[in-house]
């Protein structure tokens, strides 16, 4: 069928079908994001959180309360508030955040790189360790390495990350002194490097502040490892089950009969076929990390996106919450597109479709 449709399609027809599918694609993104906004707004308004009290304190007089209430636009009907928000967003204005008194966009530009930096190192650790461990467990199924990997990944996956974080701090920071304390750098290096890319490890090298670089490295490895452990556990377990599935397939048996080495069978044949699934798993895990690891950010006082989103949510600051939700939505869509592209690279069948 595929061959038929490809040979029948004229360039003009293909142009139109591409246009229609592109429009559909963009349309679906817009609808998704809009749906996300509506949902966030409704949930935000249903939450029994009062942003005014957060600002004025609970002993403020009614007059002060009313004034701030009106200043935040909360005296307007809900639909007016929503459409005002959407129209501001379309102009690129997400308003001012209660927490910082600064434009939300500025805040996100500040906190998001901290999370990307942490999340990226974590996912490199998580995937870099998780995939080989998963493959090892599958190949040595029901033998000691498999039991070990399964035990460790179960342990890492089921133990709360904040507990690992606190224990890590206790061991590597308080007792051994191998890791820095909390925050992105030791506190007396704060503010020495102005953001260029926002990634402190890179910025400190760019301006030649090596003390800050080493401090940032000392501070990031522990939270990144703790977060990475969690992704590692997940990725290892998924890799193991994908690999077991592939290793039982007939083509693997055929390859073995043909006399290929164990290494070739595993990596050239079986592993090649799970790459597509792995891409999805890793992309989703990465997305989860970028969305913010609130508990780890709290334990390590990491000034990242998760903490920002949560504190705004607690405060009932819908400007910031909606901007963050939108960003998370865009992020997942972007990661989906990225994994679609990687599918095409890894799986020739999808290229033909």
């Amino acid at each position: 069928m595929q061959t038929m449709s490809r040979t029948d399609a004229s360039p003009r027809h293909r142009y139109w079908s591409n246009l229609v599918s592109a429009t559909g694609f963009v349309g679906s993104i817009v609808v998704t994001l809009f749906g996300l906004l509506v949902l966030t707004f409704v949930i935000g308004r249903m939450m029994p959180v009062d942003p005014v009290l957060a600002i004025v304190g609970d002993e403020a007089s009614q007059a002060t309360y009313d004034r701030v209430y009106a200043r935040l636009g909360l005296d307007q009907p809900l639909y007016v508030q929503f459409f005002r928000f959407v129209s501001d967003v379309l102009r690129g204005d997400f308003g001012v955040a209660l927490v910082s008194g600064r434009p939300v966009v500025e805040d996100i530009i500040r906190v998001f790189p901290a999370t990307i930096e942490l999340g990226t190192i974590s996912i490199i650790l998580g995937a870099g360790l998780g995939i080989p461990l998963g493959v090892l467990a599958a190949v040595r199924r029901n033998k000691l390495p498999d039991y070990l990997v399964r035990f460790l990944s179960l342990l890492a996956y089921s133990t709360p990350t904040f507990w690992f974080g606190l224990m890590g701090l206790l061991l590597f920071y308080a007792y051994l002194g191998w890791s820095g304390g909390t925050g992105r750098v030791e506190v007396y290096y704060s503010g020495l490097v102005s953001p260029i890319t926002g990634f402190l490890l890179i910025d400190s090298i760019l301006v030649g502040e090596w003390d800050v670089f080493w401090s940032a490295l000392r501070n990031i490895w522990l939270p990144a490892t703790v977060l990475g452990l969690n992704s590692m556990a997940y990725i290892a377990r998924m890799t193991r089950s994908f690999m077991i599935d592939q290793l039982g397939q007939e083509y693997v048996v055929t390859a073995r009969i043909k006399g290929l080495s164990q290494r070739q069978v595993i990596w050239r044949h079986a592993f090649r076929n799970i790459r597509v699934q792995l891409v999805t798993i890793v992309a989703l895990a990465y997305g989860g990390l970028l969305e913010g690891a609130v508990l780890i950010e709290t334990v390590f006082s990491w000034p990242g996106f998760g903490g920002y989103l949560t504190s705004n949510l607690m405060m009932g600051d819908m400007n910031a919450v909606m901007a963050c939700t939108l960003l998370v939505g865009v992020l997942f869509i972007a990661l989906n597109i990225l994994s679609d592209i990687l599918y095409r690279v890894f799986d020739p069948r999808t290229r033909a479709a």
Partner: protein
Amino acid sequence: MRNTLLAALTAIALSSTSMAAMAATPADQLVVGLSMSNILTLDPAAIAGRESTAVITNIYDTPVQLDAVERANVNPGLAESWEISEDGTTITLNFRQGATFASGNPVTVEDAIWSWKRILELELVGSATWQSYGFSLENFDDHVRAEGNSIIVTMPQAGDPLLILYMFGKPSAASVIDSATALQHEVDGDKAAAWLTTNTAGSGPFVLRNWTANDTIILDRNDAYWGGPAAMKRVLMRHMPESQTKRLMLERGDLDVGLALSVPDISALSSNGDVEVQSISSSGFYFLAVNMKDGRFANQETRLALRYLIDYQGINDTIMPNYGVLHQRPVSPGVLGSMENPGYTLDVEKAKEHLAAAGYADGFAVKLLSLNEPPFIDIATSVQSTLAQAGIQAEIITGTGNQVYGPMRERTFEMIVGRGGGGQEPHPHSNMQALVINPDNSDDAGLSGLIGWRTSFYNEDLNNLALSALVERDPAAQEQMYEDVQLMYEELVPALQPISAVVDTVVFRSDVEGYQEHYGWTTRYHHIEKSR
């Protein structure tokens, strides 16, 4: 490849060990760990919480400073002296010469008046207190004027001038802003409200260098400070919401001062010789309150029963260490008129008699609101169990600040474990205003800032007695009157029963000298030194 990896790991390990050796804060910088979640603005007219007050105190000056230890003492600030007229209606503040703002502009009485009026104009947090003493935007110019280097204030309504003097030591009510600098950043007549949210223009011992919300606040020393430069070159405040993190960093010496640690962490640190634990009696009370709009609690007998259904001793012995100390009356310990506790104890039999008299011999079901954090939730649990002994079935409903105090502000709650009750000024009226006085009990009055109104507790005679105590000029007579107010309050059986007076506990490294936590949250870093 393997060698490269090994080399890199060794490099990191080496750098780690060499850095570990210098894990101590610099001798000329003070590193403070606190939760910054409630620091939403640095505008003195808009600050509400204790953390923002602590920051503002060190950036802005007030005309006077309230002594951190001797509560009745007032120390000079920007005003080097002051006089209160014989009849108690006029206060004159004489400003010091030579004080300058961080910008270099001289501090003038005009700046002080501009800053004060600005609070009333913006109608933000600080305005409510001034309004309660009769100052309004309309009458301001009639009652406040500059004369040479002095500000002359006449009181718009009868009251105790000392109380007004204390207000001049509160950062949210009397911080002096550099009006020339602020006005350069005014937008659409906003009195620089937008600019001052994230920028500062003060004359205090420190200058804001950088504020990154929920991350860091960096204050640099103001070398031109009128009181002489501070010993610390810089104060670094780091957002640390997690108590155990603060504890670890204090133990390691990476943190000089830790605020608001959890009680288990404070207890663990109190045996550590490298740190010092400082507990001070702060402002406000932990209390159990009911809503008198609810028919059951409008009945005095029911309220009397509740008085005997709280395990005061048990709560204070087991739950409250480092949070609060036993206190059962509505005037803060240590201020004028403060009395011995009346000695209420848990007495279930007595409570049952009063419940029967109220017509609730079999008890009733009630919803008990509490913040979902210690010590509130622990107090609520204790109260729940003692109420049950008299047949009152309390269902504890927990939530965040808004969820718990919201229904109280709207007078829709039934019962609550809360904290509050004034006391940031060392004057009993501060407590009276928050807890006892309720000028108008109608729903329309909307006096949601007053706990008296929130609990719908109203007694005209009590109001009058408290207000006449305020205007009494003879200190001995005034003290007697405040005692009478408390006895009358007790007799009327209020809707709110104090259980403990709030205690603030701070932990700092032993080499930090001169740290004195302030009951009004105005802790000053100017005199802090490190003995190294």
